[in-house]
């Protein structure tokens, strides 16, 4: 191509009569493609999902069986017959981790989903419902939010007793307050967009506006929070079991396993009984957050690389 100097009149070659109506390519559609860390996250989560579903069939022993019935010694080190050693009550740690996987993931997932369902529906509902309803809902939510989670948890569990459904409901309700706050804030931001107004002007109902106009746009920031929330739920239930109110023995869940085996560290016997469940929690949650981060990396901070 020639180099037009300023005095020169440059005209690109053209064919007379060809209309310039050809449309440009649309910008490439940016679907999510996991990066390396994303793939690691997906692999680990898949691994745990398999364990959670098939744990009881894969486990070498029953949840409460003793690998060494004649040894009156807890916290046996890893050895043939008990690859991760035994726990505080002489049970096989590997088996308990496998049994606990389903319960831990199940409870936290169920509770987080409950928290999200409630929090999102009510939060966006409050954002959509006008200032009065919003005021009332927000104040009630604030009230619950201002009370310590552990206090609410204690009172509920003390009142109804501890069972897995109660745990799920309690954690779900408690964290619904946080989600409510978040969802409402996000909802408020989307509410002022013209497309929401356009839907209203069309005469659409509230439910339609929430589900079709707002939710698809609120989804992403909420998912980003989901990963962290899941961890908090796992921690919350394990805090409850620290107080003796979580998943009840002899059932295994990772949080209470860390707790009930803490003695192994404390009494200087073995590190595995604590490390194994703690690492299980850590790998799962880190993996989930790696995925979440990877997905959300598509969004923010794109200018940082240009600084």
């Amino acid at each position, binding site marked *: 191509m020639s180099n037009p100097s300023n005095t020169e009149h440059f005209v690109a070659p053209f064919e007379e009569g060809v209309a310039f109506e050809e449309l440009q390519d649309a910008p490439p559609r940016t679907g999510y493609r996991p990066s390396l860390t994303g793939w690691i996250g997906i692999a680990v989560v898949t691994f745990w999902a398999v364990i959670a579903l098939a744990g009881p069939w894969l486990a070498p022993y029953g949840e409460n069986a003793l690998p060494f019935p004649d040894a009156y010694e807890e916290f046996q080190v890893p050895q043939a017959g008990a690859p991760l050693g035994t726990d505080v009550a002489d049970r096989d740690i590997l088996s308990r981790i496998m049994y606990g996987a389903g319960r831990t993931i199940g409870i936290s997932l169920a509770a987080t989903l409950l928290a999200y369902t409630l929090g999102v529906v009510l939060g966006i509902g409050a954002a959509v419902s006008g200032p009065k309803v919003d005021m009332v809902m927000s104040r009630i939510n604030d009230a619950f939010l201002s009370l310590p989670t552990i206090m609410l948890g204690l009172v509920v569990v*003390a009142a109804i007793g501890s069972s897995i459904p109660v745990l799920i409901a309690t954690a779900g309700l408690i964290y619904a307050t946080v989600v409510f706050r978040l969802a409402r804030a996000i909802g408020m931001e989307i509410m002022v967009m013209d497309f929401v107004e356009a839907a209203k002007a069309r005469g659409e109902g509230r439910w339609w506006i929430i589900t079709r106009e707002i939710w698809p746009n609120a989804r992403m920031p909420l998912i980003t929070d989901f990963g962290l929330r899941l961890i908090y739920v796992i921690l919350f239930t394990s805090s409850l079991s620290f107080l003796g109110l979580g998943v009840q023995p*002899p059932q295994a869940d990772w949080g209470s396993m860390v707790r009930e085996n803490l003695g192994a560290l404390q*009494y200087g016997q073995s590190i595995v009984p604590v490390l194994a469940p703690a690492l299980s929690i850590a790998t799962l949650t880190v993996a989930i957050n790696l995925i979440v981060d990877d997905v959300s990396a598509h969004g923010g901070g794109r200018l940082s690389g240009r600084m």
Partner: protein
Amino acid sequence: ARAAAETPKVGGRLIMAGDQHGPNDTLDPILATSAVDYFRMRMFYGSLTRLTDTLGYEPELAEEIMSNDDATEWTFKIRKGVEFHDGKTLTADDVIYTMNRHMGADSVSKSASLVSMVKEWVKVNDYEVKAVLDSPNADLPIALGTFHFKILKDGTTDFSTAIGTGPYKVKEFKPGVRTIGARYENFWTEGGYLDELEHYGIGDSVSRLNAFLAGDVDAMVNLPPKAIKQVEAAEGKEIWALVSGAYVNIAPRLDMNPSGNMHMWKAMQQLQDRQRLVKGVLKGQGTLGNDQPINKAYFDYCEDIPQRELDPDKAKWHWDKSGVGSTAVPVVCSEVAPGAVEQCLFMQREGKKIGANFDVKKVTTDGYWGAVWLKEPIAVSSWNMRPTANIHMTLAFKSDAAWNETRWSNEKFDQTLLAVRGVTDPAKRKQMYCDLQTMIHEENGMSIPMHRNYVDAAANYVKGRTFVPLNNFGGAESPVTLWRDDSA
């Protein structure tokens, strides 16, 4: 008594770590509920009598104790020259005031039942009081040596501090946190050697152990059995273990279903993995239970009853007879004492092997005594030791006892229990107590798989421990005698 070899030194400071503290910590003796309270009471107050290591009694604030022949009238001569922390001298009025707080139907005293046979406390003169009883009670002075009968100053209603006759004065009292006592210079007798005695509550046993091992506290109650090895290995730390009659048990209600099924509860008794509970859970700091409440810590223990063992075959035989089959049998458990939950879990595990399906429901400790205990068909329970076998069996096994956990009713047992109170012939008495214990062992239905020791730990410079087996820290009697040996 046993530690008297060394002469106590005066001075220094000790921090004793207790457990179970809370905002309901109190300085009111009649409301004391926990070992922490008992220890505190002993720091600040004195009582008429003091229990001995063998669970007899010896005089304390009462110089002389006399009764009539049928033990229906007791006279207490009060020691002269004993001063309260505010300088007031102890007189009969103080004793009468104290005792009257345990009297009457509306008394909130936790030990009102121990003195319920007392009709009246009478002031004979300034230094003598008399208890007039409805029925004979040879053990009254022993009862008065227990935790709740600490002597208050006449008219005390404010319990934000404690004005007692004990070896220490209140320096600081924060419910749920700690109590600090400063030496009371005018303590009437030997004891109260420390400049300051602090009792610090650390509810969590792991933290308590950490604090102890790190030297942040000098002694701790309720050493977790699993930590025993570690403390034994640690330098300069000692274990204070005390064999006692305290036990944990599983109580089937005989008047309910399916717990009333004899073959079922017999199977349950055969399913108890007693060895594992004692060796594994208590790490040897306990004794095998034999499905009856009295063990060798009691004077009246009967050695002749054969020990029941884990026996799956017998258990299966009973289970099959019971006809319960694989129906789920709910068992309500709570962490009311070490081993309380394990006994359920072990039973559940062993039961599975013979086809029994125990559905263990673990509930929280708080609210357990109000909401669950004595109400569920099968539930666990835990008992402290009482000064005498008779007191304990009267409380927990007599047909009309409020706390008769299985609702077992046996006329012969009740009669023997009453009759034995008046028996003085040792052989006869022994025989009768053996009968009583055998009856429970065979018929009551209770599974008592183990008795637990009181296991505390202290640094080796902590001296002056006591051995009264009714509670931790030597029956909470140690505040008087504790001293610090910095040469150790």
